[in-house]
């Protein structure tokens, strides 16, 4: 065990906020970002003048269209923040790696209250032109040449993580006997949660037959295994635990963080393609706590593709490797009502990115905090009549992964 000082416990989450979320809402991404940031600061009971740290993923990027567009400098300047610490970037253990950065900054005393944000406008970026208009190397007039990792995949017509994750899912199916009828329950569970989430994008009921009938994207992943491009911004405030005493609500404490990548940092060179970095991030997180998976009430686990959620469930130890299919089949062990039931965990209670929209990682942390605060409205999970007290937010897939174990007890 690599047990070290667990410094992340010096940091807490003090507030969360979200902008309008939707499909093709054609709003300025900076405007969405400021909405989310101001909501999170207000939610924490802080003033903008209290914010002395700023973090984001992936920073300002123009390509792929809609993937970002808002970086540290834009928010810093728009809100006239006075920062002691800031960091934005892409080379992180997944989207929530930016929050891990903020936790580290707060825990080491570089700042007291770090505002973290993630903004996407991928739906508006596609407009009516469809997916092909934003595909890497497509529509570029023929001038684009692939380099770095992309050179090893784009020439083979595999520009999307749908292809890379499709190969991982197919290997999982082959090795462990997982079926589409099982994997479907990731999507079906998310949809039934989204039905009662007023901000979710897809809220109409989905049946197993609907899932099996929809068109294939990259076998075995069908359209409903893929998250839905959205516009929106999410923000969270990470605060120093001893600076959080007079905040608006009891903080969500950070019990442990996992950010490990102990295999090769590559979508196709990693040793075990059925687990990828999720295995390492989850292992590290559990190495830093005495809590066990059986004590977790809610799990908000990344679903850029449904298979990633299945792999997170296995990596985090809710079931053994290879048993994710039987674990989710039928949907009972992952339902909202399953929170607190031995051998079960309420999964993606807001509808995940599959149904609530691809807010790219931050949506899971936002939802985990709302659930722990008892502020999730109609979809609120109950454990012994109250809000759940232990939750996980985990994001990333392939070689990118970070996991947060959160508690309020």
């Amino acid at each position, binding site marked *: 065990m690599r047990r070290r000082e667990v410094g992340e416990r010096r940091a807490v989450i003090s507030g969360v906020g979200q902008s309008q979320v939707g499909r093709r809402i054609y709003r300025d991404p900076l405007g969405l970002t400021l909405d989310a940031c101001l909501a999170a600061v207000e939610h924490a009971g802080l003033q903008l003048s209290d914010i002395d740290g700023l973090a984001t993923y992936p920073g300002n990027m123009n390509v792929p269209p809609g993937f970002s567009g808002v970086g540290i400098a834009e928010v810093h300047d728009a809100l006239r923040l006075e920062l002691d610490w800031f960091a934005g970037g892409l080379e992180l253990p997944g989207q929530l790696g930016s929050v891990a950065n903020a936790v580290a900054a707060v825990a080491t005393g570089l700042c007291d209250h770090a505002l973290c944000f993630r903004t996407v406008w991928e739906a508006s970026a596609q407009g009516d032109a469809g997916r092909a208009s934003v595909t890497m190397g497509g529509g570029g007039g023929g001038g684009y040449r692939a380099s770095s990792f992309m050179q090893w995949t784009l020439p083979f017509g595999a*520009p999307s993580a749908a292809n890379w994750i499709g190969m991982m899912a197919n290997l999982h199916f082959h090795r462990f006997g997982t079926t589409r009828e099982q994997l479907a329950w990731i999507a079906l569970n998310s949809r039934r949660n989204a039905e009662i989430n007023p901000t979710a994008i897809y809220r109409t009921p989905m049946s197993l037959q609907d899932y099996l009938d929809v068109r294939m994207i990259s076998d075995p992943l069908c359209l409903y295994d893929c998250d839905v491009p959205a516009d929106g911004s999410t923000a969270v405030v990470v605060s120093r635990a001893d600076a959080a005493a007079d905040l608006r609500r009891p903080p969500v404490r950070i019990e442990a963080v996992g950010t490990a990548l102990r295999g090769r940092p590559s979508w196709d060179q990693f040793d075990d393609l059925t687990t990828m970095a999720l295995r390492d991030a989850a292992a590290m997180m559990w190495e830093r706590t005495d809590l066990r998976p059986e004590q977790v009430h809610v799990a908000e686990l990344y679903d850029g593709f449904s298979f990633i959620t299945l792999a997170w469930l296995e990596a985090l130890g809710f079931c053994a490797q290879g048993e994710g299919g039987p674990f989710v089949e039928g949907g009972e062990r992952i339902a909202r009502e399953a929170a607190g039931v031995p051998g079960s965990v309420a999964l993606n209670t807001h509808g995940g990115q599959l149904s609530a929209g691809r807010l790219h990682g931050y949506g899971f942390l936002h939802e985990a905090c709302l659930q722990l605060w008892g502020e999730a409205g109609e979809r609120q999970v109950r454990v012994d009549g109250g809000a759940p007290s232990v939750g996980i937010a985990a994001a990333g897939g392939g070689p990118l992964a970070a996991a947060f174990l959160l508690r309020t007890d």
Partner: protein
Amino acid sequence: MTEQPFRVLPAVTTDNEHFWRGGEHGELRFLRCADCGTWIHPPQPRCPECLSTDVAPQASSGRGRILTYTVNHQPWYPGLDPPYVVAIVELDDQPGLRLTTNIVGVDPDQVDFDQRVHVTFEEYPDRDGSVWLPFFEPDPDVAGTAS
């Protein structure tokens, strides 16, 4: 001659030229460490096992097996029509020596895990000279036997 399917082409440099242009000689080339014999992919200036700088391109067997695959049905690019098979092939030369590729010359329904395959190149002319994309096709003695 029919027009080739659209392909995004790699930016060829001195570091990766052996891989992308080895097909001109019918060879699937990777860097190999002269000191410990380790095959290296993607290219890098030191052997990751022994850290030797004595690494140089060498022709691999070009033979291996399908580690995993997916049948892509999504039209990502105009001019590259689905369905087609994207696969990760592991070469016989060394455990873990693998690459992403396409399985060609076979109906997608006939592709399977652990299928024996060998490299086949397709030349794509580009502004600074051709590249040879390494695809794989099932070995003749097992083609079509996958269930």
